């Protein structure tokens, strides 16, 4: 049978050595009343070719081409070189590197990933990845409470942060903290007056998007000051990490914790998962920050090597006292991002970000000229919201395109808002087709 190497004679010899008469007898400790005694009612086996035909048929039901839609799952070019390196079995069929001598590949790549995260965020330390941007945001909020020694129990969150991220933060808050939301203004940025009013001595952390859900770039420096003035931790959350290629880093603006989603580098959309959560912070929070981390050390001969370290914070040692219950992280996604960032380099990253910015600007200008005015006045990177006709999605679909998120789904008050994303995957012809569909 496929993937099962045993011949009938293998099985008989093995049973004999074990001292039982049948495979069933191996399960003698399972009470008879619990035995299934019938075949599972799952679909029948397909041979490899039939399986491929079946899966291709499913995949081909999906629309073709890159959607004009990000919202935390940003369509980007994944170089074939990245994808082909990820197909190396030594990378994707390895386990978490608990035996460092035979996992130096994974460990060094993790170390390089941490380095990239610190460079992009302008902060000092980073972990080896988290599930996605939303769980990273929730973990940041938990860490803020932890840093206060549990004395502060409130987390202030901008309503312009990704709605799903806010959902997840709320889900995680069960016991630890309260979530207070702050509105946004006509520029699409967090309302600074409301924010100032919401932050008090019980506030553990302040959490805003950068760029936020509307693609608008927040004034992180001012937000960090407001938070820190009350002794709270300032947290920025970035759902489109490519923006770091062009924007000033959170760290440079005084932010304490930068989290978010890094799927944009080397990872496909995959219907929204797996993502690649990143988590960076200041060195002083080294013993408080969640997740797995790789560090450099030496072997007995003085040769450099890498290990998982600071594991006294983790659940398999601390059990119920751990900083988080995370065990498996998103290592292969981090590997993809590390490979892609290595190939881009500083220069390539900037060039790619600029290309995104310029294409999005072209689309914004042409849409405005066609009557689809910007919803917000604040500065944007590669995502932006416009006022669109109510049949916008139908028109886009009819044109053989996809994407655009009606903001009413998450913000009833923004009923005519349509969130769009334009990246290097959208060439001029495709952008023009979008505009023609909506004009």
């Amino acid at each position, binding site marked *: 049978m496929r993937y099962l190497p045993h011949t009938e004679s293998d099985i008989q010899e*093995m049973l004999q050595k074990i001292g039982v008469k049948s495979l069933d007898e191996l399960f003698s400790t399972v009470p008879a*009343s619990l035995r299934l005694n019938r075949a599972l009612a799952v679909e029948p086996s397909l041979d490899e070719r039939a399986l491929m035909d079946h899966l291709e048929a499913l995949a081909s039901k999906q629309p073709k081409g890159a959607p004009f839609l990000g919202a935390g799952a940003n369509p980007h070019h994944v170089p074939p070189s990245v994808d082909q390196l990820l197909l190396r079995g030594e990378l994707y069929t390895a386990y978490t590197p608990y035996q460092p001598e035979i996992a130096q590949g994974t460990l060094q790549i993790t170390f390089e990933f941490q380095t990239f995260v610190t460079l992009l965020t302008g902060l000092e330390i980073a972990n080896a990845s988290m599930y996605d941007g939303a769980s990273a945001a929730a973990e940041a909020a938990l860490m803020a409470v932890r840093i206060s020694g549990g004395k502060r129990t409130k987390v202030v969150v901008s309503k312009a942060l990704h709605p*799903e991220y806010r959902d997840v933060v709320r889900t995680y808050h069960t016991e630890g903290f309260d979530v207070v939301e702050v509105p946004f203004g006509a520029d699409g940025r967090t309302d600074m007056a409301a924010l100032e009013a919401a932050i008090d001595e019980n506030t553990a952390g302040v959490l805003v998007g950068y760029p936020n859900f509307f693609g608008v770039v927040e004034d992180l420096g001012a937000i960090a000051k407001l938070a820190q003035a009350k002794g709270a931790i300032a947290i920025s959350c970035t759902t489109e990490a490519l923006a770091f290629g062009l924007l000033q880093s959170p760290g440079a603006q005084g932010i304490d914790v930068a989290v978010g989603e890094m799927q944009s580098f080397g990872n496909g959309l995959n219907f929204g998962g797996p993502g690649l959560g990143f988590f960076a912070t200041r060195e002083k929070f080294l013993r408080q920050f969640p997740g797995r981390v790789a560090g450099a050390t030496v072997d007995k001969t003085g040769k450099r090597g890498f290990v998982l370290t600071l594991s006294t914070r983790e659940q398999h040692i601390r059990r119920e006292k751990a900083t988080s219950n995370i065990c498996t992280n998103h290592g292969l996604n981090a590997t993809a991002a590390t490979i892609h960032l290595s190939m881009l380099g500083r220069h390539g990253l900037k060039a790619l970000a600029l290309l995104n910015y310029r294409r999005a600007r072209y689309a914004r200008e042409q849409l405005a000229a066609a009557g689809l005015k910007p919803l917000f006045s604040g500065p944007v990177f590669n995502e932006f919201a416009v006022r669109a006709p109510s049949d916008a999605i139908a028109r886009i679909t009819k044109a053989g395109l996809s994407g655009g998120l009606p903001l009413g789904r998450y913000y009833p008050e923004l009923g005519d808002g349509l969130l769009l994303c334009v990246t290097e995957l959208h060439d001029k012809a495709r952008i023009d087709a979008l505009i023609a569909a909506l004009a």
Partner: protein
Amino acid sequence: MTEVQAVRHFVRLSQLNYSVDTGFFPLGSCTMKFNPKVNEWAARLPGFAGAHPLLPTEQSQGVLELMYRLERSLSEIAGLHATSLEPAAGAQGELAGLMVIRAWHMDKHGTPRKKVLIPDSAHGTNPASAALLGYQAVELKSNSKGVLEPATVAAAMDEDVACLMMTNPNTLGIFEEHVEEICRIVHEKGGQVYGDGANMNALLGVARPGDMGIDVMHYNLHKTFSTPHGGGGPGSGPVAVAEHLAPYLPRPIVVKEGDTYRLDFDQPMSVGKLRTFWGNFGMHLRAYAYIRELGPEGLHAASRLAVLNAQYIRALIEDEWDVAYEGRSLHEVVYTDKKLKETGVTTMDVAKALIDHGYHPPTVYFPLIVPGALMVEPTETETKETLENFAAAMKAIAAQAREEPAAIKAMPQKPVVERLDETRAARKPVLRWSPGFDVGA
């Protein structure tokens, strides 16, 4: 870096890794089975890899249909009513499951209750997840056969207990033969039973948690259903529940109406969202492909042969290696280092020696209740010959430990580095490259 530099760098790094594709990986509790290559092909189909999670229902039919079919299969395999595919990994699946239990208690009893009972053989994530929700973890002792006694549960069970978390077969590889009675005891006091699905690879088509009385369980698709471990994820931890708990599952769930599939967000009792979007679809599709590859007979055969393989190793080395608990175990076996005590060679030394023999070490020092534990799980995809070679290595190490313990303690010698100084790494953390980076040579 140009493409050639990056390719060489990462090809070289990859070659420093041990992996399923390079050798036998009997890491107990992690189920390092072969990852079929057709699944990687499928994951790269543009329709799947490029599917955006927020497109309209009619532009998501291919991916939703796949998720629906997977959900149905997982519910059937668990013997439970419904499954949420949303959790990103086992630990998040656990958290989701406990949240569901918590929400049910709130709804039914007006209180989340306070305690969670956890056997001493449990995974570390169990108490961590319970703690994250504010529960007090209460440890239950296993008996001398390595199984949980109904009396132990009965003694600890009261109306402050939200649930019992158990793994079956447990982390000793032993089937909890009293599971039905234990579930009854917990249910009688209004509690729920959480099943950790980490060891489902022993039971596919053999027995179903739902039939045992378990109310909630999570799967690890990266264990039982062959999605690759990726050097540390991504995993996927779907959570399956009995009918009375279905309204509390994370939102949304995938439903089928006529010939149309859609995400149903209309779940007022839901515990909410644990993560963005709808789960690790990239892993769902691999798990679905795997289930379709094997079909009902293949899944059943996989569990039977996984158990056969584990028992065959046990039979081959039983004279040299002490098994922690005597009774019949299933898909994995936990050994102790008792027979090496006088040599000074420890379980960690054995692990490192196995590296030089060309194997990934078993899980070591887990479960915590077994001193010097070595937990061997071969999985069903290994050949008889591989198992025999591994058994020979285990015997050779036992023999050498007696004759040349120092040689064992100097292992491994074959990898690119020798044993690493973990204390230094933790005391003087160096967590990124920097201009002055100068750890070692």
